[in-house]
């Protein structure tokens, strides 16, 4: 037995091992640094080619430096070997290195079991239905490789047929897996640190610089999914606020988080109730539709009605909110108006002069000043583009008077600076706008590419009023969404029919998020409510799980212990006859031979004596007279049995 572990691998096994590693690399490639994937893939291919076509081993002087280079590269790129992303990169790298020294059955076994482990680690980065299914399929090559290591099997001619038994095995394992998924008690608090948050995701941040959104606007992963009680608001009203930014330093707008201040008053005209399911952002802000009336549990309403959660959103988060969509926000500005007029000194002189000139021209008519600004954006030759020209120190001057091109950040920033210069309290709000209404699932899908920035001005008697200067430049951005605003500037997969297909497909992702990813300790406790158990605590779950496992095992054993005897046709015919005779009252006794039995039956049923005697002779002849029964005599016996009448004789 020890000798089998050191046997050298045959070609087919080595192919399957390499295929398993290809699956691992492919599944990790989306979050590995591109240079690492680009280095590991050729190494893998070369090694495969080397062993398959040269039958050579990799020399030690090549293996050791490669290993050192891998460690060095990972440490210098991530700064450490520990943590989720460097750990995954290290695991993938080491696995590919393992292939370099894979020669024996034992190497292959070690490599393939760690390949399974690494495949699971890919799910730390993406938990969507697609990712989960792909990882499940990725398990097939390792399983096939393990299977191919057994000596004395019949390898199929086509290599892909090796994968099918693994599929069958996983399918057979599905019931028990589902049971375990439902019943395995979840941990109330993690045993060790939550997945590290160092990894920066593109997402809304509490700081806005012109052109800082560009990354975000081409990232079309889902940001949130919203369902409404009642009809959804029209597209032009779908503004989701995240940050309210008050402070401008000449280059960027920032949100200052101040706790322990009561939220400003709001007079709500029309409210709407909705449920948000927020994808992990690693941030604390919870986007809300317009002005929220209260914060959800586990979060706080800040002064400017920004909702800040107590902990960063590291996993899918669901919350329900009431928001006002017709409102008067902060009707009295009070003492704090200076804060909304702040401008850095010594920046953007031409912009400030323009603002002041508007004030001089329109006097106290704030509304007219706002309209003047919008008219400037609309008629001043401005262009909406995701790739604007870079701006200098006086960014707003450059934008307004020279380049004339930009996207929402530029417009909202310039608008707010102009308003403040004219003496109107103004601020920048960032968040999401638009989204795709999935009519089948009745929910709104908001992607990261729907990130948006707009302005708010405070007008006497009306409170804070939303003004979206981007709408003045390109109304399609608001009515049709981000993709419609910049035709030809987005990646190919974000445009046209493909995007619409992906929008429709998202309903599956939402279902997956709700039913699988959202299945937490809380939902688990309520799992048994339909069966009358109010609170399924750990002991009950474990008991149920044990019972379930025992039942599955019993089913498996029943399947395994079942013996299928090759049915003998003559005996089957006799058995049928026995059943018929039993209905007539002549049952076969245990230990009674067919001859005795049929003679007894012939005695008991004198009306059928001839038939029974003939049947007995036929059977005995079939059974004992010839070595192999002929088909015609068998058929005759069957026919005679079938025609045997069971109508009870009237005595």
């Amino acid at each position, binding site marked *: 037995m020890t*000798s089998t572990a050191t046997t050298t691998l045959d070609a087919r096994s080595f192919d399957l091992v390499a295929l398993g590693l290809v699956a691992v690399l492919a599944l990790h490639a989306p979050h590995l640094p591109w240079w690492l994937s680009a280095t590991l893939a050729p190494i893998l291919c070369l090694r495969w080619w080397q062993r398959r076509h040269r039958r050579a081993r990799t020399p030690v002087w090549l293996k050791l430096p490669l290993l050192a280079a891998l460690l060095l590269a990972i440490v210098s790129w991530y700064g450490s070997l520990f943590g989720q992303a460097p750990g995954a990169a290290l695991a993938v790298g080491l696995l590919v290195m393992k292939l370099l020294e894979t020669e024996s059955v034992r190497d292959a*076994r070690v490599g393939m*079991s*760690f390949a*399974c*482990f690494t495949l*699971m680690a890919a*799910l*730390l980065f993406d*938990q*969507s239905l697609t*990712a*989960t299914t792909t*990882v*499940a399929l990725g*398990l097939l090559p390792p*399983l096939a490789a*393990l*299977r191919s*290591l*057994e*000596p*004395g*099997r*019949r390898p199929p001619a086509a290599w892909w047929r090796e994968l099918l*038994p693994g599929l069958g*095995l*996983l399918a*057979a*394992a*599905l*019931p*028990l*897996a*589902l049971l*375990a*998924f439902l019943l*395995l008690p*979840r*941990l109330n608090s*993690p*045993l*060790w640190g*939550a*997945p590290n948050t160092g990894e920066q995701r593109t997402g809304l941040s509490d700081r806005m610089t012109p052109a800082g959104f560009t990354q975000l606007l081409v990232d079309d992963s889902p940001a949130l999914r919203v369902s409404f009680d009642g009809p959804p608001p029209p597209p032009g009203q779908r503004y989701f606020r995240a940050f309210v930014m008050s402070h401008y330093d000449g280059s960027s707008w920032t949100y200052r988080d101040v706790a322990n201040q009561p939220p400003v008053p709001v007079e709500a005209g029309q409210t709407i109730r909705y449920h948000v399911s927020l994808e992990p952002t690693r941030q604390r802000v919870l986007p809300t539709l317009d002005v929220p009336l209260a914060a959800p549990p586990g979060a706080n309403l800040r002064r400017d009605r920004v909702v800040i959660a107590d902990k960063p959103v590291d*996993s899918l988060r669901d919350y329900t909110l009431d928001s006002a969509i017709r409102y008067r926000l902060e009707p009295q500005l009070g003492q704090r108006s200076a804060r909304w007029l702040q401008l850095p000194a010594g920046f953007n002189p031409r912009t400030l002069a323009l603002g002041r000139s508007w004030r001089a021209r329109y006097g106290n008519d704030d509304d007219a000043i706002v309209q003047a600004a919008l008219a400037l954006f609309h008629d001043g030759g401005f262009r909406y583009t995701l790739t604007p020209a870079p701006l200098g120190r006086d960014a707003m001057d450059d934008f307004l008077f020279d380049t004339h091109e930009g996207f929402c950040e530029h417009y909202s920033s310039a608008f707010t600076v102009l308003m403040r210069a004219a003496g109107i309290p103004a601020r920048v709000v960032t968040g999401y706008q638009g989204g795709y209404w999935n009519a089948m699932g009745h929910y709104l899908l908001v992607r990261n590419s729907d990130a948006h920035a707009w302005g708010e001005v405070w007008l006497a008697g009306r409170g804070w009023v939303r003004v979206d200067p981007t709408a003045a430049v390109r109304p399609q951005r608001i009515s049709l969404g981000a993709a419609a605003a910049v035709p030809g500037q987005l990646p190919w997969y974000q445009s046209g029919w493909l995007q619409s297909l992906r929008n429709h497909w998202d309903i599956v992702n939402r279902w997956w998020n709700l039913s*699988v*990813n*959202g*299945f*937490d300790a809380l939902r688990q406790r309520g799992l048994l409510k339909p069966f009358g158990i109010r609170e399924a605590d750990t002991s009950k779950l474990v008991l149920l799980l044990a019972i379930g496992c025992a039942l599955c*095992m019993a089913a*498996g*054993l029943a*399947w*395994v*212990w079942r*013996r*299928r005897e*090759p049915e003998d046709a003559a005996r089957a015919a006799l058995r049928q006859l026995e059943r018929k005779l039993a209905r007539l009252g002549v049952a076969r006794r245990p230990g009674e031979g067919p001859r005795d039995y049929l003679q007894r039956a012939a005695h008991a049923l004198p009306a059928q004596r001839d038939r029974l005697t003939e049947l007995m002779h036929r059977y005995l002849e079939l059974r004992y007279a010839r070595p192999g029964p002929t088909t015609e005599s068998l058929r005759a016996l069957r026919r005679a049995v079938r025609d045997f009448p069971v109508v009870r004789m009237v005595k």
Partner: protein
Amino acid sequence: MRAVLRRFAERAERRLPALTRLRQPEPLPIELGRRRIYILPTAFGLGFGVLLLVMLVGALNYANNAALPLTCMLGSAAAASMLLAFRALDGLCLRSIRAGHAIAGEPLELVLDFAASRPREAVRLDCAGESLAFALQGSAELRLRLATTRRGWQPLPRLRLWSTWPLGLFRAWSWLHPQHSVLVWPRPESAGPPPLLPGDARERLRPQAGEELAALRDYRRGDAPRHIAWKASARHHDLLVKDFERPEPRETWHLDWHALRTLDREARIARLARWLGEAEAQGRRYSLQLPNERIDVGSGPSHYARCMSALAVLP
């Protein structure tokens, strides 16, 4: 370490024959059933289990609801592979054993005939240090070489059928102890005198005059090339062959146990075995007289086998 384990196993065998099923030889055919198939995880299986546990704890810790069902699925698949390992052996039947002939000290070829209703893969057979892996569809004949040491009946050693099919995580095994013995022939001595023959026989065996070239005749298919008279053939149309006087048939050997009084028992047997072999090789007819048995004159492989077997079973 290994020695300690083996001693422990032997002790367990002695103490718990019912559990280990190592004791009782059984008549053929032997069919494997659930009462005699044992399963334990292999070392690799234990390692894989630890890895699964790590994955499970990781998935639970990170509340990763995508990795959790997949880990459970992999775990259940591993458990299901235990059933498949069992199924690889269950219902397998050792129908018959055929043994070849071998003299002591040389390996003896055994042919084991296995049958099963379902096709099997990756079943392995261990027998006295030799290991075979085979797949089976309907039936399969396995050839094993069994080492022999001394003449006589030799019981078959225990056979172990085992399988780690399909993933190598679990090993299912079953011991077979067929009630079957093989007969090992005595080893002939390497050199020694020819059998002592009666005087007149010796006379007749002397080379006869006239065993010279008698005539030339036409070539017939099957004639040895060295008998062809090349020179004579060159002058003729056809090949000519030298025809010798047909030699007298070789003397019949009457081999007698009692004629070798001076030797001890095993030496007598070894000498008789050598004479039997020589007689068979020279195409003689021979008979064999043993203390309690007489085998009449005969020749040919079956006669030889009968004589050797009779020698082998001598007390």
